[in-house]
């Protein structure tokens, strides 16, 4: 909301500078985003009446004028040809300053003195494209309401300031000059005055020109109409046009401008129809009918349905109630008779229609916040005074339809409650004073138990005691409330148990060299599709969760996995020549779950580039990270072959823990890397965190160090290529009970000494007894059992 300072001052006396007022407004909760100072540096320019025009005796293209500026009669020479005797024009006498800083001095032109200059709109600093065409060129000819000698920089708003307000959703009353003026009066302790002069009406009644019917008062609690004849549509007088501009609204013509002017002043949107173009001279406020449509004044065609409230004539909709008028009945140069609508429409109905049609207007912005029905008649009256003073003839009377107007709300307020909730001790008299300045009436009896407060109808947001407490608080001043640290029952601060575990996992990942990243949970569904699983049991879902109302296609789905965004992060970094990366993310992923959305916490990592000590990352670096993570929280890691298509077909695995699939690991498939424009190998893994958080050991207990020495033996088998190290390890562990303490696979070899189709796996085995020193014989016996078992089970041969 843009509030010109000069407009505000029509309703309340302000004797402090605009910046100071802005500060006070902000501290009272009227958020002033900024104050714009419109001054273009113009000063000393006055209105002058041209009394006489003669040709300059020494120059064909110059005119010699005598201009009356109040008491003075000046001789001014001008090159402009659009002036006539009797015109009112802006005159810059010697000493005046024009826009851009030019100071006027008396000069001699072709032998004759010129005491000043007649000014064009441009020289006064107007934005030309905001003015009607005929005011853009030559000397600006003023309308007759100016009198000679008036200082134009004030009248034309050339030195005005505009408050740009951020109006909160609960205060539609502040979308008006008078609403802001009421607050200003409250803040400054001044009187707010709103006087509307009477205007002459014609003899013929409005009912003879038009009839109005409201079908459903729940959708339209109040509808008023006035009718005007002998209307001459033309540009608005300059002061009105300039005010509208300062408030951010483009002037159109005197009728439309009047409705906008009153909307800004009162906060009540109005609409003017060309009465002669309304079929049947009838207004019906009704629901739309499926299949109807309307061409609005913006030229676009909008479909109407039965959820839309329309203003119709005898046949078709002529306006979308509260949102926008129709082209057919728009005010035009030919308009002679006007129907002025000032109505109250149901807030939700307007809001939904405006959302559905994608049409936001100054009008819908106000209606959707719920307006005071009392405003409708006041605003209608105000607009009528303006139209009549502009030469229109008002028909007698007003059509004013409503079932019942809301009365003034009464609220119980306990002053003790105010001081209790604010932590203050504001005296009762002071509370009463604050409320009364804001036009809340107290019932006079200042009893501690409670006062009955009468709420002005303009304050529809004040519905219960807490709203009054807020009024008192913001006008008393938040700065006056003393801060203190809470006493009362102590509570002990602590982290969430899950968060403590997650921080431990963060720490492990970072000790392993991981850089934490945070990425967006919304992305491109077509990219996400490459990571969905086709088979049961994988951790990624089969489908993504789509967003119903995305703004862009690449934000149209919730991520099913952390990998897509991690790979995108790898790609971006490689583009920036960050070539060696170890990144990880902990975050939520989403999957459809029977009409609902399941969210689960995942951990994912990606590695690329070279590793410390040389060489490029490969599968086993990824596996090393998982092993270290699992070891740190005492979980066993088991891997199974995987078929996930986005991994390298020979280097991919499913991660198992406690018998269920909890993750995946592999080198990203080179085809996918090609599509992402990534030209170096990437290893990545992702696991569910839930099983880690529930089964992992995050608080470890002490295990006594072994007291007796161990016996270590190495063992190498030649087996079929298909046999995995994990299978052998399990067989060894099984056969080595109870003395076998640890098995580590330390070599996998294929080469000249090994037959085709076979490989050699070498293990280091540690035997130990907890209660005695192990003898060589005992260790040998266990070792022998292991060899036999493995040889039998895998047709393995011992390699020596």
């Amino acid at each position: 909301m843009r509030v010109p300072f000069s407009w505000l001052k029509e309703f309340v006396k302000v004797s402090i500078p605009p910046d100071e007022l802005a500060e006070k407004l902000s501290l009272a909760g009227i958020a002033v985003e900024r104050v714009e100072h419109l001054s273009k540096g113009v000063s000393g320019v006055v209105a002058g009446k041209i009394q006489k025009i003669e040709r300059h005796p020494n120059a064909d293209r110059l005119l010699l004028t005598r201009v009356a500026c109040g008491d003075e009669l000046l001789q001014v020479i001008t090159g402009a040809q659009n002036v006539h005797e009797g015109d009112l024009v802006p005159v810059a006498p010697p000493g005046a300053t024009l826009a851009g800083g030019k100071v006027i001095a008396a000069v001699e032109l072709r032998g004759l003195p010129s005491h000043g200059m007649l000014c064009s709109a441009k020289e006064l600093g107007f934005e030309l494209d905001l003015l009607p065409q005929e005011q853009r060129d030559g000397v600006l000819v003023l309308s007759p309401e100016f009198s000679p000698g008036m200082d134009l920089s004030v009248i034309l708003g050339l030195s005005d300031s505009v408050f740009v307000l951020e109006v909160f959703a609960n205060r539609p009353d502040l979308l008006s000059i008078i609403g802001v003026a009421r607050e200003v009066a409250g803040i400054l302790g001044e009187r707010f005055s709103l006087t509307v002069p009477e205007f002459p009406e014609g003899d013929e009644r409005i009912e003879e020109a038009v009839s109005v019917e409201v079908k459903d008062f729940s959708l339209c609690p109040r509808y008023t109409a006035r009718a005007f004849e002998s209307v001459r549509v033309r540009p608005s007088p300059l002061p009105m046009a300039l005010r509208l501009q300062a408030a951010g609204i483009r002037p159109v013509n005197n009728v439309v401008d009047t409705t906008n002017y009153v909307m800004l002043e009162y906060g009540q949107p109005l609409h003017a129809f060309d009465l002669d173009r309304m079929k049947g001279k009838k207004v019906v406020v009704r629901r739309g009918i499926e299949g109807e449509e309307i061409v609005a004044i913006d030229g676009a065609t909008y479909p109407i349905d039965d959820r839309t409230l329309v203003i119709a004539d005898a046949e078709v909709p002529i306006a979308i109630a509260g949102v926008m008028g129709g082209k057919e009945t728009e005010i035009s140069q030919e308009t002679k008779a006007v129907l002025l609508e000032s109505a109250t429409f149901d807030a939700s109905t307007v809001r939904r229609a405006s959302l559905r049609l994608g049409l936001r207007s100054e009008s819908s912005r106000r209606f959707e916040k719920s307006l005071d029905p009392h405003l409708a008649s006041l605003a209608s009256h105000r607009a009528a005074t303006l139209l009549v003073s502009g030469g229109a003839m008002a028909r007698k009377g007003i059509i004013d339809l409503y079932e019942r107007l809301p009365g003034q709300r009464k609220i119980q307020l306990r002053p003790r409650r105010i001081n209790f909730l604010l932590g203050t001790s504001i005296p009762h008299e002071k509370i009463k004073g604050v409320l009364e300045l804001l036009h809340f009436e107290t019932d006079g009896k200042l009893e501690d138990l409670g006062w009955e407060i009468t709420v002005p109808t303009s304050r529809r947001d004040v519905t219960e005691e807490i709203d009054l407490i807020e009024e008192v608080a913001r006008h008393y001043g938040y700065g006056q409330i003393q801060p203190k640290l809470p006493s009362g029952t102590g509570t002990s601060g602590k982290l969430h148990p899950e968060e403590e575990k997650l921080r431990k996992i963060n720490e492990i990942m970072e000790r392993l060299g991981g850089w934490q990243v945070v990425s967006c949970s919304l992305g491109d569904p077509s990219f996400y599709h490459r990571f969905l699983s086709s088979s049961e049991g994988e951790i990624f879902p089969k489908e993504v969760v789509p967003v119903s109302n995305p703004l862009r296609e690449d934000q149209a789905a919730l991520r099913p996995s952390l990998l897509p965004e991690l790979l995108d992060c790898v790609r971006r970094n490689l583009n920036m020549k960050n070539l060696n990366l170890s990144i990880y993310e902990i975050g939520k992923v989403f999957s459809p779950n029977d009409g609902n959305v399941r969210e689960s916490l995942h951990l994912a990592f990606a590695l690329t580039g070279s590793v410390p000590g040389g060489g490029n990352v490969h599968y086993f670096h990824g596996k090393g990270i998982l092993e270290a993570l699992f070891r740190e929280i005492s979980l066993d890691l088991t891997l199974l072959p995987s078929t996930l298509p986005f991994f390298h077909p020979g280097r991919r695995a499913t991660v198992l823990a406690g018998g269920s699939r909890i993750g995946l690991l592999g080198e990203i498939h080179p085809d996918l890397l090609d599509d992402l424009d990534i030209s170096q190998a990437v290893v990545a893994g992702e696991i569910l965190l839930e099983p880690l958080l529930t089964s992992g050991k995050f608080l470890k207990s002490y295990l006594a160090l072994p007291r007796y020495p161990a016996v270590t033996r190495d063992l190498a088998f030649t087996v079929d290529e298909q046999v995995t190290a994990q299978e052998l390890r399990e067989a060894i562990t099984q056969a080595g009970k109870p003395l076998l303490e640890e098995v580590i696979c330390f070599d996998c070899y294929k080469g000249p000494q090994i037959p085709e189709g076979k490989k050699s796996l070498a293990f280091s085995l540690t035997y130990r007894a907890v209660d005695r020193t192990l003898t060589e014989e005992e260790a040998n016996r266990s070792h022998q059992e292991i060899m036999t078992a493995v040889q039998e089970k895998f047709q393995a041969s011992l390699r020596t």
Partner: protein
Amino acid sequence: MEQQLQELEQQLQEIEQQSLRGISQAESSGDLEQIRIKYLGKKGEVTLLLKEVGKTAPSERPRLGKLANEVKEKISASLEEKTKEVRRKERSRELLQEAVDITLPGLSLPMGRTHPLALLDREIKQIFVGLGFEVAVGPEVESDYYNFEALNIPSDHPAREMWDSFYLGNHLLLRTHTSPVQIRVMEKRTPPLRVISSGKCYRRDAVDATHHIQFHQVEGFMVDQGVSFSDLKGVLSAFAREMFGEERKVKFVPSYFPFTEPSAEVSIDCFACADGKGREAPDKDNRSGAGGATGRHAWEQPPPCRVCGGGKWLEILGCGMIHPFVLRVVNYDPEKWSGFAFGMGLERIAMLKHGIDDIRLFLENDIRFLRQFS
């Protein structure tokens, strides 16, 4: 016989003298090895002499044997000592050969880092945990009820504009703020409560330097008997000073949120302005008025402050007394319990703290950006 014995003794003495001289003159471990072989090797002079001793009369053998062994040990000891000495000398020569250019870069060792938003999240939580708050968690996919209705934002309420949302169908949406956690916690527990919660939130907004569809919020609330606006000011002022410096001024300005009343916006005075007037610090090198690096003359006004843009105050969070509607929703009697709630954007705080001018940097995860925080 006697003569033979004397010869033997003499030979031993000579060997001793010769060998010790040789040892002392030796310069390399090779020389020393040769000396060892010459005297103590299998066919060395001492070894041979010892064999000779074995052939002497039994009565003389012990004395001669002792003598010979003494010589042998002397040589051995001397060899050993000299070897050590030579070895040290040799090593110090070798070490010099191993000299490196100590200014070459070190090996790059893996060291991970925490994301700046996560660091800030921990910092904020630590402050509130110190003030007696416990951390709670909540889902990112919320129902319309928890995200809006329970927070006094019914459907069609114009205030919904403040939170343009991504809908997922079935009355579900991505939470637009962390405030639903308030409701979830209060539904399950009874006061006194001091709770803080943080996480991702989403708004259907065009992405630019200061807006993103995803951001993080930290939300907190306190409910107890007799909690007042005065407590709200106390707790949040303490937080602001802990976070931005003891000397900060903290300002509370009325604002509007449907779920709190009275509501406020909290600002701190700009910590980056040199003069408290919203201007950059004057350029120190520019005192001569000769232009300097910025090309600015001394008599010109410095440009507006890069952090507050000349506004002097920085908004850091929104807050207010919990609206009685919200207390009634969770079946708390507003006559018995009162409380306050607050919320802040992590990105905004991080941008203020570190002078970051583009919110998108947090999600781009450029290593060169992440490297700057620890």
